């Protein structure tokens, strides 16, 4: 049986990790590749780099990041942030990334999902969906880093991206993101019920219990978290041990000869 995945996410701007990171045992935790290699050694199952460098700057930052990560990271990694063309995707994958995630561009041109899935395979195509609850209790899709409402119903969009060829959904609750109050369980559960592709729950993780709750109560395949790992409130191996103690199947990092 597949293990549930734990995925640390790094926001990267102009080649540096954006959110303050405090690691005593890491010389340069602001370097996303050094931080990623550290998470790999600690037992992370996959990594997400969200490049938020403004689009008017050098557009090759994502390709460079993918290539540099390939030198030191030996687990799958996803590159996201402002990816809008097949050529972007081709270069990022060729540099060593396993998947790309697309968000705003997929909403503006849904055919991008189908074209990239056909060319590179669905397994490379992650669609990131940012959602917020509406007054009537349904959820709406937001774009541009959660700033722009689209009027699109989130559950309809989730099933649509699956139909268009997405291999995975990275689902972020804008209501919970940054609150550390736990994942949005009802929204995540609703998406997991409606699609058959893997869902990564994101937004709101503040303690290890939150990771377990999302896995146990929603049917998600992976949990994404940033601050609880970046601030070293918990190590990845502590998270794995905790989940295993609750009967959740996880990969425990083995220590090899080196």
């Amino acid at each position, binding site marked *: 049986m597949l293990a549930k995945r734990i995925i640390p996410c790094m926001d990267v701007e102009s080649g540096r990790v954006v959110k303050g990171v405090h690691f005593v045992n890491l010389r340069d935790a602001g370097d996303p590749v050094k931080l990623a290699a550290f998470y790999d050694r600690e037992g992370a199952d996959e990594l997400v780099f969200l490049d938020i460098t403004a689009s008017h700057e050098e557009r090759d930052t994502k390709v460079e990041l993918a*290539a540099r990560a390939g*030198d030191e990271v030996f687990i799958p990694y996803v590159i996201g942030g402002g990816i809008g063309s097949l050529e972007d995707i081709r270069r990022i994958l060729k540099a060593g990334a396993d998947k790309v995630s697309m968000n705003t561009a997929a909403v503006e041109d849904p055919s991008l999902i189908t074209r990239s899935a056909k060319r590179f395979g669905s397994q490379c195509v992650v669609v990131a969906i940012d959602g917020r609850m509406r007054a009537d209790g349904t959820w709406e899709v937001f774009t541009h880093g959660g700033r722009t409402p689209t009027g699109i119903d989130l559950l309809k969009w989730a099933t649509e991206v699956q139909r268009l060829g997405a291999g995975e959904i990275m689902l972020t609750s804008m209501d919970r993101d940054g609150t550390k109050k736990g994942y949005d369980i009802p929204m995540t559960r609703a998406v997991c019920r409606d699609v058959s592709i893997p869902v990564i729950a994101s937004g709101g993780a503040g303690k290890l219990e939150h990771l377990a709750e999302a896995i146990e109560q929603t049917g998600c395949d992976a949990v994404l978290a940033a601050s609880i790992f970046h601030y070293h409130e918990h190590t990845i191996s502590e998270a794995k041990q905790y989940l295993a103690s609750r009967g959740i199947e996880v990969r425990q990092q083995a220590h090899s000869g080196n």
Partner: protein
Amino acid sequence: MTRGIGIIDYGVGNLRSVEKGFEKVGVSARICARPEELDDYDGLVLPGVGAFGDAIENLKGIGLADAIIAYIDSGRQLLGICLGMQLLLTYSEEHGRSEGLGVIPGSVVRLPGEVKVPHMGWNVMNVPKDVPLFEGVDSGSRFYFVHSFYCLPDEAEWTVGVTPYGVEFSSAVGRENVWGVQFHPEKSSLLGLEILRNFGRMVTGARK
């Protein structure tokens, strides 16, 4: 003139990760693309992602298929990774039927409908017997998989790793000097690198 391991480039997939993985464990590895180059290497890796039919057409079209078979006949070690493992078998049922290299008799078939396909993520590999490729790797360890088809070798003894996913399938094969793993060692963290290190050792050991 020996060059360590040659990673065969036939126009599909990402070879850089495999190259970097060997580099990380101190094994000399280079990407090679011309049939006449293969002989220069002490061991070969056949990587691959994508469709079986396209891959075998590419290999045959540039004369690599015959060169790989001749290389294997010379007794030197070859490791197939993911689609590269599947290409070693006789044929695949992906998109009808495509002939493979046939160095490990058997077929490549689709995972059963009851499980999510592609099989993507970290799954266990049980190791039924000791083989040099998995030295230092405990049976039941997890590796990173991304695939929709699996290998069904004709002889049970060629299966050196088994993974449960809807069926118990051969996640690793070994027949004399030919090896294959369905998962990606270059994306399987420390234990995956350990397998690359073992292969490097097997290749140089064969020269003693």
